[in-house]
């Protein structure tokens, strides 16, 4: 399986006036195949959005990022290389990403105009795309404010499709939407990926949606990918204690009245990450060496990888020891 989008050792620094640079992503690895949905999850501030922006070239990054065999060049004043058109991004807030003063059809058709189509032709094809994402064809001659949040996100998706992408990076594409719109926009994205044989990085803080739609999941903590693997296996037997903590914090709407498990402590300041394994101060399974040794992300068996001393390269993921005595205690 050759990778459509591949990132290794990616680091992104934010330069701040009067303060040392902040390393938001620090040596993260990702790979995505055609027709695959990769869920990228983690707490806020873990660097998942920054990594998403870096892999499409919206942010300058150190490390190696390749799309379809070409290196990614960060967006600058020059025209984007033609090979990069196939890599597109969907943003969180469809209220901010659409121009309120232009017809929806014109905004969707921009991609065709760049490809050399006439305005009339672009508008006609934009109408087709709008129908494809579940909107009426006359939507092309209307303005964004005439649509609900879910419809606007469909418009934003139609606009990326005009570039005929082979890969989409979607950053929290359903987080700003109502419950029922969330489900329908998520379904639309899945359908498009399957139908057009694209790849998609689906960045979300909503773990239950990622579990439902992602083929593989990557979990980030403090600028690093700490675990990645097929979604079902990662959920049923997490290999990294942080993955398990995230999963057990998700409340279920099953009516059972079970309080979710709390992960004590806050995400540390990324400007001053802890020594050794970055998760060790919050880790219920931490050993003495964890405060000293920084474990790399190693490849395990069955397409899984993890960055934890408890896991050994080339071996199947070892089940994590029960830690209820630590995290199960009422730490409120």
């Amino acid at each position: 399986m050759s990778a459509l989008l591949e990132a290794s050792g990616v680091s992104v620094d934010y330069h701040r006036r009067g303060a040392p640079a902040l390393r938001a992503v620090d040596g993260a690895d990702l790979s995505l195949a055609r027709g695959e949905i990769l869920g990228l999850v983690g707490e806020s501030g873990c660097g998942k959005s920054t990594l998403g922006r870096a892999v499409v070239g919206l942010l300058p990054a150190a490390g190696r990022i390749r799309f379809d065999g070409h290196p990614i060049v960060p967006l600058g004043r020059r025209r984007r290389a033609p090979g990069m058109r196939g890599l597109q991004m969907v943003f969180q807030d469809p209220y901010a990403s659409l121009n309120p003063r232009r017809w929806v059809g014109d905004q969707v058709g921009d991609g065709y105009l760049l490809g050399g189509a006439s305005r009339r032709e672009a508008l006609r094809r934009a109408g087709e795309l709008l129908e494809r994402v579940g909107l009426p064809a006359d939507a092309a001659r209307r303005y964004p404010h005439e649509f609900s949040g879910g419809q606007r996100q469909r418009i934003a998706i139609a606009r990326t499709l005009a570039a005929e992408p082979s890969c989409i990076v979607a950053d929290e594409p359903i987080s700003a939407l109502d419950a029922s719109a969330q489900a329908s926009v998520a379904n639309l994205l899945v359908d498009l990926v399957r139908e057009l044989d694209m790849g998609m990085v689906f960045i979300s803080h909503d773990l239950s949606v990622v579990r439902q739609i992602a083929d593989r999941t990557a979990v980030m903590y403090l600028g690093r990918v700490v675990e990645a693997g097929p979604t079902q296996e990662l959920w049923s037997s997490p290999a990294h204690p942080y993955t398990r903590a995230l999963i057990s914090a998700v409340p279920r709407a099953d009516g059972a009245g079970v309080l979710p498990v709390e992960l004590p402590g806050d995400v540390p300041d990324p400007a001053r990450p802890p020594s050794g394994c970055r998760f060790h101060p919050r880790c219920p399974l931490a050993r003495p060496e964890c405060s000293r040794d920084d474990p790399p992300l190693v490849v395990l068996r069955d397409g899984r990888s993890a960055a934890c001393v408890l896991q050994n390269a080339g071996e199947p993921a070892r089940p994590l020891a029960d830690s209820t005595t630590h995290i199960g205690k009422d730490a409120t």
Partner: protein
Amino acid sequence: MGALLEVEDLTVWLATRRGPRMAVDGLSFQVGSGEIFGIAGESGSGKTMTAMALLGLLPHAARTSGKAVFEGRDLLSMSARQLRAVRGRRIAMVSQDPSTSLHPMLSIETQLTEHMRHHLGLGRSEARGRAVELLATVRIPDPEQALGAHAAQFSGGMRQRIAIAVALACEPRLLLADEPTTALDVTVQAGILRLLHRLRAERELAVVVITHDLGVLSAVADRICVMYGGRTAEVGPRENVLTRPRHPYTRGLLDALPHPEGGAAALRPIPGSPPSLGEVPEGCPFHPRCGYAVPDCRTERPAPVLVEPGHASACPPDPLGGIA
């Protein structure tokens, strides 16, 4: 468990450019002392306006009718002066975003103590002592030092804990929490939910949790009211509403959630979108989106009726009644 708050036929009209529009339409519910009552609904369902009406904080030129009896007195007919004595003292509120509900320039101590001194007439050192206790109650590390700090020095989860401490300062009997965890990560959300659950037990505090997230209500609520188009669709004990819903809207909300066991099945959205203010359809407000609608649903406006003890649903055809 006598009702601490009894809302009866609450109706709220908001002033719009096209005249008054109904945001809450004849809502009734009770909250007992020490009970966690959940109000669920999508945007525009009227859940936030319900809380604002109880606090007398509705936007300018809004009108209300009905009753909201709290500790024997009707909040809706109180004067502004009487309300000020209740608000922050007997009823407190926690809002979604702690970075806007806390003042950025005032110290945590000032924000925690000003209403204790105002409402309870405490002196500076007495109020300070209680502020330290409160911060310890909501598990802020090093409370003494936290008093001198400002909101920006804390993480989102810690800020929400401080906002809860501010709300608890005058020992209210009722806490209104509007989307208290929506802006937080799941790991932090878990801590806040545990905190609300503990406060209820320790202080017999009644909490109304308003959220769109049924998972949150499943974790902490004793009873749940599902709102749609300003009205009650369904109300009852947590387990009944979430495992044996009787209203098609509740069923639809639950079906739209990702399946807890995962799997490749597609998500099942409710078709259409919720009505916006002033555009609530005639008849049952949910009928245009309902897979079970019958002709009567277009004309009859159903009120909630008991379907089993303590569990009411506003759906007379009751298509889910026969399904266990």
